[in-house]
């Protein structure tokens, strides 16, 4: 039988300034699946996302992160990106003077270079930009603006998903992509993400709220609390959390 594991995390521990934030995470995500990770503030959700993407600020102690069976431990953030890891940031950074288009060209061609490929031909690049921006209902003018500079919260998030569409990652992690979005923007972003779902990639959606999961329906839902996954289930778990909050899980975890 073909092993279709996209991401496998085994007993992952991570800390910053000697403070342990992730305390033994186990997670397996197969190609074609969407997993949601929920949990209260400070439970370690964003840390998990950043550790997978290779943020060097965190000290990874025990444990492994495997992408298609390959250990990512020694790889830099850019090498992970070249292997197909993508993180949609909760707070995207502003880069004045570098347009969205030029930023995407640089990102895509750097990845191609790492794979021993030539730069993407200009017409192909333009076609792709046009196609993906239309999919996300992004105005052409928007693409010549400086990356994230003066963007509204919603524009920043939509731009993150546009980048995801352009980079076509194997594993996409969406960190609080729903925060700061009104209902229309949420729908557009979610539709975009759904169009990018395929049997060959996997998506991890990190969110506080069940709302996003009405649009991006997950195959599995995990609850992260105090640096550990304390409960896993199907999409019904998200509804249960919406109704009952997190306190019952905190109590359960304390026992």
């Amino acid at each position: 039988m073909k092993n279709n594991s996209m991401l496998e995390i085994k007993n992952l521990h991570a800390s910053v300034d000697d403070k342990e934030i992730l305390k033994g995470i186990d997670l397996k995500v197969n190609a074609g699946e969407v997993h949601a990770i929920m949990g209260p503030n400070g439970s370690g959700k964003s840390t998990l996302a950043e550790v997978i993407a290779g943020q060097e600020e965190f000290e990874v102690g025990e444990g492994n992160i495997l992408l298609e069976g390959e250990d990512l431990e020694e790889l830099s953030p850019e090498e992970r990106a070249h292997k197909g890891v993508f993180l949609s940031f909760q707070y995207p950074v502003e880069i004045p003077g570098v347009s969205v288009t030029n930023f995407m060209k640089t990102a895509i061609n750097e990845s191609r270079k790492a794979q021993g490929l030539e730069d993407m031909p200009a017409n192909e690049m333009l076609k792709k930009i046009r196609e993906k921006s239309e999919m996300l209902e992004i105005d052409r003018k928007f693409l010549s603006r400086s990356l994230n500079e003066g963007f509204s919260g919603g524009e920043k998030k939509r731009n993150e998903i546009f980048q995801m569409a352009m980079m076509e990652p194997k594993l996409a992690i969406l960190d609080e992509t729903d925060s700061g979005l009104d209902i229309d923007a949420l729908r557009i972003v979610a539709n975009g993400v759904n169009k990018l779902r395929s049997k060959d990639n996997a998506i991890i959606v990190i969110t506080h709220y069940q709302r996003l999961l009405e649009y991006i329906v997950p195959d599995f839902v995990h609850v992260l609390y105090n640096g550990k996954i304390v409960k896993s289930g199907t999409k019904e778990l998200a509804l249960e959390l919406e109704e009952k909050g997190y306190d019952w899980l905190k109590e359960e975890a304390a026992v």
Partner: protein
Amino acid sequence: MDLKEKLVSSFMAFEDGLDLDHPVHEERSNAMKNFETKGFPTKKDEAWKYTSLRGLQKVDFSIFPKHETTLEYKDVKKYFLHEIDTYKIVFVDGVYSSYLSETTHDGVDICLMSSAFSKPMFQQVIEVYFNKAASKDESLTSLNTAFSKEGAYIYIPKNKMPKKPIQILHLATGNEAALMLQPRNLIVAEDNAEVQIIERHQSLTGNEVFTNSVTEIFAGKDAIVDYYKVQNDEPTASLVDNTYISQKRSSVVRVHTFSLGGKLIRNNLNFYQNGERIDSTLKGVTILGDKQHVDHHTLVHHAQPNCESHQDYKGIFGDSSTGVFNGKIIVDKIAQKTDAFQQNNNILLSDRSTINSKPQLEIFADDVKCSHGCTIGQLDEEAMFYLRSRGIPKKEAKALLMYAFANNVLESVRIPELKARINKIIADKLGVRMGFDL
């Protein structure tokens, strides 16, 4: 013999070759007296606290080049902004090169100081403007005035605008083991005139060069002057640039200074506002490494009401490089409604690099808007992670962030080819290929 003594004795020889009845002669003699009294500035002078000229004074500089050298255009083409058509005033070891230059007298005068000094048709302009904005007190300016003989002369009459930008290029061939250069430029844009100027000093070898330059710029009513200084010289070339700008009512003068290479760079940039509704802009990008040193001393003197000034200096310092920003703003009592803005941001890339940043505000009017800000920091780690997570390697990510940091200054460059050139110099310096024009 130290450099000061050598200069004093050279002055006598210099005078022998000149017309002693010329009205400028007295200016030269007085200037020499001032330099003789004061000598080179030392670290005891408050304005020179962080920049030492002691090392340069120990070098045995030739004051006048012994050889005359001709250069082939193809060998120096890369130092020109050759992508666009321009007027060119080119000096090789301080001597005018007619072969490399393209001057004009067609409606505007774009030529040489030596011509302006000697020909009667320019005498009136020289009498009205020469040495009228430059300091008679500052010793290095006096030293330049004493030896003033050659440089760029640009005169744009009322309502005129040259057909194309002007490049002033000072090349040092290295035919002297060590050469001191003292170019003297005079730029006059009369009422409602407009001009764009690019200036560059370039040494062609690793031989020592010390340039002590003075530029006077006069902007008439409603005139617009854009002046770009490209400082990307060899690590054995030092530059003291003294620029004095005198502005009349509603004029706009913008000076951009790109300090990207050299051993020691000192910029004394002085703006005097002599009318209402004047706009003065001073912007700079500094990117240095090794043991390079740059010192930006700016002065904006608001002497009339309702004027503006905008200063924005960005500095990136790597290795053991050192920087100074000293921004002085004077607002006279009469200069109500002045709007003076000053910003100096710095990034230190290494533990050994230093920046000393000092705003100096002397405000005597009570209804003014003056703001100043200074930051010193490192490259934003979060931003680095963001770029790297998009597959952009560390070196390229760093370069992108530096571009972004310097962007405010770069985006106000009004000659696109020059902007592209500066970007290329920066990219080459950082050893990256950006794959697009920023």
